[in-house]
């Protein structure tokens, strides 16, 4: 850590919060429609954020190039989102409003998000639903033909729109179809099976990227007047997470090394309802939608030596600990609270299953009350998925669940325009440090990705394009040759080690360090230990990794090795950030900072800021920049769910 802490400016507009976005948009420069095609925009990633941005910018007339790792834009990790997307439509007439969604999000984020951004998000949420419905997203409907809503993630209003249990899929397919329409009309050049391996900057301004063609192995240079990074979150630093296998920090990390500040990396979301780990062979964890907590009751045996099967354990020998500790919210407490409570029970030895690392989620009462058919209608596909993975039937025996890494609130620091500290580099979706503060509420990530992609970036990109900083470089510039040479050298280095360990085993070991020390509960001692373990593991990685094959063909082992190498550097920053944040807030829980009854103790006096880290060389301490957070509307208070 560094002693000096320069303050960071967010470029947030001031004035009444409800007018800020409209006023700001008016103040932004416009680019004449006929001139837009002269500007090239490179969009990296085709998840909700990237596909929406690429399609919209092309509609506006910019020359857009779009890159993704998968073989088709439709396969981005956003496809896996299940539960739904929030909007402040107040269709159910149950007291919702833009202000309430704004209020809930600021509070849910434990007062570590920027008010102006959150308000804008809540405001745009309504346009997103309109846009998606117009594209043909088959949202759930009522019999009269109106859009249906449900309450999700403990919200006290029904503001969540959904498409069965496949909301992310349907929203992404909507954005993908808009993108493909633009590819067909020539507005977007689409390059699939491409991995961005470096950002190219000239005089500190983004000028393009180096990408690897994953099929031929060739490195390609792509220049652009602005680069939009929409590459998702970094949950896979934990090895096991609910993220897709290709989800990575590599692109964001390369931008960080080229000058983009990384903000709040320690803010990660651990989701309470996932299928527990079954063994060392496990490659990913599967989320069981949060909606299950609407009807399922969470419990463990009171006596930690009780080894009876769940049906043999009578009511009075069960501890419904969420209902006991949080009588008013019960099983519907926010994710961070529910996850920590499950860990606390397992730490006390009351966990169930072979590993003692799970708790019961019991539908017995709901089935007795509503009947199995009604429960099947609500959760049938989830029950089926559970049975497919575990071989157990949740209609007959309680599900076993355990928290798993799910989402990352931290990311590259951006100002109100979503521009990073590198001019010309914009960051959208989960890749930015975003609007969720220290804890994201359910159904808010899809909203943010689409808000950034369809509405915010297409308006704010002129903050750079019309700024006079655009350099109009082509790929002959020496900066491209230099970045390409570095990328080539790195890939040869990875292939050259030919050590004694597989990429997976090294990644798994890193994940264990992260989970044990930078997971649900953190201590200064554990974090310091983690920092030194990560450093030695990083060294071991570069001495011991074995990557088969060559760079000149499709080589999944090499791709993975490159991504894991970046996690080995990034993990350390997460621990450094968690160590510096001497408070507990949202998903960040420092055991030294808790109330008498074990709740998170926030320190607004010293930590009401976003921590944005500047890279100074891999073995050098990072420099911390603080963006002070001010709350003009929602006064910070202690979150209480009792």
């Amino acid at each position, binding site marked *: 850590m560094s002693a000096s802490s320069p303050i960071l400016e967010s470029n947030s507009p001031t004035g009444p919060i409800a007018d800020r976005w409209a006023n700001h948009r008016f103040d932004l420069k416009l680019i004449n429609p006929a001139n837009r095609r002269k500007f090239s925009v490179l969009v990296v990633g085709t998840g909700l954020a990237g596909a929406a941005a690429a*399609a919209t910018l092309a*509609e506006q007339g910019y020359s857009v190039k779009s890159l993704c790792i998968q*073989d*088709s*834009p*439709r*396969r981005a*990790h956003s*496809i*896996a989102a299940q539960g739904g997307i929030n909007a402040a*439509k107040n*269709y159910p007439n149950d007291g919702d409003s833009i202000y309430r969604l704004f209020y809930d999000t600021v509070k849910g984020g434990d007062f570590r998000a920027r008010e102006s951004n959150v308000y804008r998000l809540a405001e745009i949420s309504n*346009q997103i*639903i*309109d*846009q*998606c*419905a*117009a*594209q*043909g997203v*088959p949202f759930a*409907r009522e*019999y*009269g033909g*109106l859009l249906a809503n449900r309450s999700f993630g403990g919200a006290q209003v029904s503001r969540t729109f959904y*498409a*069965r249990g*496949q909301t992310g*899929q*349907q929203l992404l*397919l909507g954005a993908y*179809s*808009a993108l*493909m*329409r633009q590819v*067909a009309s020539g507005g977007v050049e689409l390059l699939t099976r491409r991995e961005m391996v470096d950002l190219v900057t000239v005089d500190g301004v983004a000028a393009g990227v180096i990408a690897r063609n994953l*099929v031929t192995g060739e490195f390609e240079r792509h220049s652009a007047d602005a680069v939009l990074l929409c590459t998702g979150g970094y949950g896979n630093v934990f090895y096991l997470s609910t993220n*897709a*296998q290709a989800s990575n920090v590599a692109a964001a990390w390369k931008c960080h090394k080229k000058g983009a500040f990384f903000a709040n990396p320690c803010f990660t979301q651990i989701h309470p309802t996932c299928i527990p780990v*079954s*063994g060392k*062979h*496990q*490659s*990913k964890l599967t989320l069981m939608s949060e909606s299950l907590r609407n009807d399922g009751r969470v419990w463990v045996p009171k006596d930690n030596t009780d080894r009876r099967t769940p049906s043999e354990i009578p009511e009075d020998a069960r501890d419904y600990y969420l209902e006991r500790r949080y009588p008013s919210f019960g099983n519907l407490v926010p994710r961070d609270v529910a996850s920590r409570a499950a860990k606390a029970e397992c730490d006390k030895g009351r966990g169930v299953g072979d590993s003692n690392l799970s708790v019961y989620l019991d539908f017995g009462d709901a089935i007795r009350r509503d009947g199995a058919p009604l429960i099947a209608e609500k959760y049938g596909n989830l029950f089926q*998925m559970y049975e*497919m*993975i575990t071989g157990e039937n949740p209609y007959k025996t309680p599900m076993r669940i355990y928290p798993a890494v799910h989402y990352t609130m931290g990311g590259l620091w951006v100002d109100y325009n979503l521009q990073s500290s590198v001019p010309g580099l914009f960051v959208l979706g989960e890749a930015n440090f975003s609007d969720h503060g220290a804890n994201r509420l359910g159904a808010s990530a899809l909203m943010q990705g689409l808000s950034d992609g369809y*509405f915010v970036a297409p308006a704010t990109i002129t903050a750079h394009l019309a700024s006079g900083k655009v350099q109009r470089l082509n790929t002959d510039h020496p900066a491209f040759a230099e970045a390409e040479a570095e990328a080539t050298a790195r890939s040869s280095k990875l292939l050259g080690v030919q050590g004694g360990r*597989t990429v*997976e*085993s090294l990644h798994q070991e890193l994940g264990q360090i992260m989970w044990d020390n930078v997971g649900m509960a953190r201590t200064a001692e554990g974090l310091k230990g983690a920092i030194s373990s990560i450093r030695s593991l990083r060294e071991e990685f570069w001495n011991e990794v*074995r990557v*088969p*094959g060559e760079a000149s*063909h*499709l080589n*999944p*082992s090499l791709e993975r090795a490159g991504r894991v190498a970046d996690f080995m550097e990034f993990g350390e920053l997460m621990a450094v950030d968690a160590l510096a944040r001497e408070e507990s807030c949202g998903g960040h829980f420092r055991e030294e900072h808790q109330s008498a009854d074990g709740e998170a103790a926030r320190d607004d006096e010293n930590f009401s800021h976003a921590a944005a880290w500047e890279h100074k060389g891999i073995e050098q301490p990072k420099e911390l920049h603080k963006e002070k957070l001010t709350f003009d509307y929602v006064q910070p208070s202690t979150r209480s769910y009792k």
Partner: protein
Amino acid sequence: MKLTLNIWRQAGPESEGQFETHALDGVSEDMSFLEMLDLLNQKLVMSGREAVAFDHDCREGICGMCSLVINGEAHGPVKGTTTCQLHMRSFSDGDQIVIEPFRAAAFPIIRDLVVDRSSFDSIIMAGGFISARTGSAPDGNAILVPKTDSDKAMDAAACIGCGGCVAACPNAAAMLFTAAKVTHLASLPQGQPERQSRVLSMVKEMDEQGFGNCTNERECEAACPKEISVATIAQMNRDYLKAAIFTD
């Protein structure tokens, strides 16, 4: 458990491929099929060989990236399941398993078990969308959609674009994939303005991409991990006829 795997290996699109046999021990029934392949790959790499290339990403049955023909069946023996959701408890100790890529003229092999399915993207580009410019949409509730229509749209929209239907079809036809998108959009009021031009150009593109013709084998429906119904094909055929008559 212990298995014998017969796996297709092919260095590149132009190379000749062949089956390779591997004995694999230490497979647990809790593993997913892809985790079993991970285990094989770790062993191969540590013994100085190259890992078998296969496509995968979400590993929960939704991205459509995983493929594989397992013992002659696209996505393996369990109905309504993608390869990544298939678990080893569906197999027994001592089993021999044959693993091949999805084979179709329109899905050229890139390497080992990885194929190029960009022909599907081309079909979508030809018209698998509703032209709705960002920012110009009316209120979400301005257009009512009867629940039965929206359910029908959702049934078809559940397609994950994996290509299992093509791999299962004796003619390597892409009818189910194309029909699923046509039916999704044709079921909604928002999809009506482009309904006729959409079906004509998507079917044309399907043919141009080198997919085969439908001879009503219904293998596509049986293999579909999302259990998309062949009723969508009937819908597409009706729409196509109507559109062809009206535009001529």
